[in-house]
């Protein structure tokens, strides 16, 4: 430990406000970014799930992977790179 007591750790010999303000901003912004990104991914995933659910209730799921979902959707075509 570089400090004698917890009080000394918080005070940082007068530099406490600077150090803790920096770490505070870092933690808050990183937490907002990480939690926000995670929630957004899950929300988008949820809306895709509902989309897929409404599709499958109207039309039975085709058993082949290559069958198009609906007439309006586009399918990806793998073009040979050679």
């Amino acid at each position: 430990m570089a400090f004698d007591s917890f009080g000394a750790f918080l005070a940082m010999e007068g530099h406490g406000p600077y150090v803790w303000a920096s770490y505070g901003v870092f933690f808050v912004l990183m937490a907002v970014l990480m939690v926000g990104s995670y929630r957004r991914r899950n929300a988008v995933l949820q809306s895709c799930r509902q989309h897929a659910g409404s599709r499958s209730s109207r039309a039975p799921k085709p058993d082949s992977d290559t069958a198009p979902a609906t007439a309006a959707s586009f399918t990806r075509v793998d073009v040979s790179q050679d």
Partner: protein
Amino acid sequence: MWPFFHKLGSPKWFYGIATRLMPWLLVLGLLCLGAGLVWGLAFAPKDYLQGNSYRIIFIHVPSAFLAQSIYIMMASAAVVTLVWRMKLADVFVKATAPVGLVLTFISLFTGAVWGKPTWGTWWIWDARLTSMLILLFLYGGVIALDRAINDEKSAARAVAILVLVGVVNIPIIKYSVDWWNTLHQPATFKLTEKPSMPAEMWVPLLLSVIGLYLLFGWLACLRMQTEILIREQRTRWVQDLFHVNEGVR
């Protein structure tokens, strides 16, 4: 090489790989960053000149480092977007620009707070600080330009060109402390030399840098997944993500 390259550009392949990588990136990232910061805050010795304010280095340097690295990665992706039109490269730029913006802001903010007790001022218009501020505006510009253009392909091209033009700023940031007189101290880590600080200081710093890199990896995977889902929601494979889980039962 070509099959691998082709696979790398496939959003479906990336989505699966990202799902598998993400738990590792998150856990290892939090462990490294946590260890580095606790060590740096409570156990590393205090600096003989700057006192305890130097402990800001353990977040300032990693975020400034990442802010520049992310821009370089975005520029590499921009080349791929322009030359090979690979969708995933554009997804990367779009997903990571906000992360770069936040990290640049953190490095500027912590730098200002560190500058007050060390230099006696929050801000000076010196080369290093100004070029970092330009980096912040570049990130903001990339995000704004992408949102301003509705057509996905035109947006991808325009953003890629802006990112590439802005890349000149990166060497300016890096060498600003050598080219001009500045209050800012020179680089802590150099590839060719031993660090100028003792191991009790640079080891926790290195841990924090590695930890933040890993967390960036997690964020990049997560945000790219989001962007891929939005773009590909009508495709077979995205809908199959749910059918595989629900359809059989």
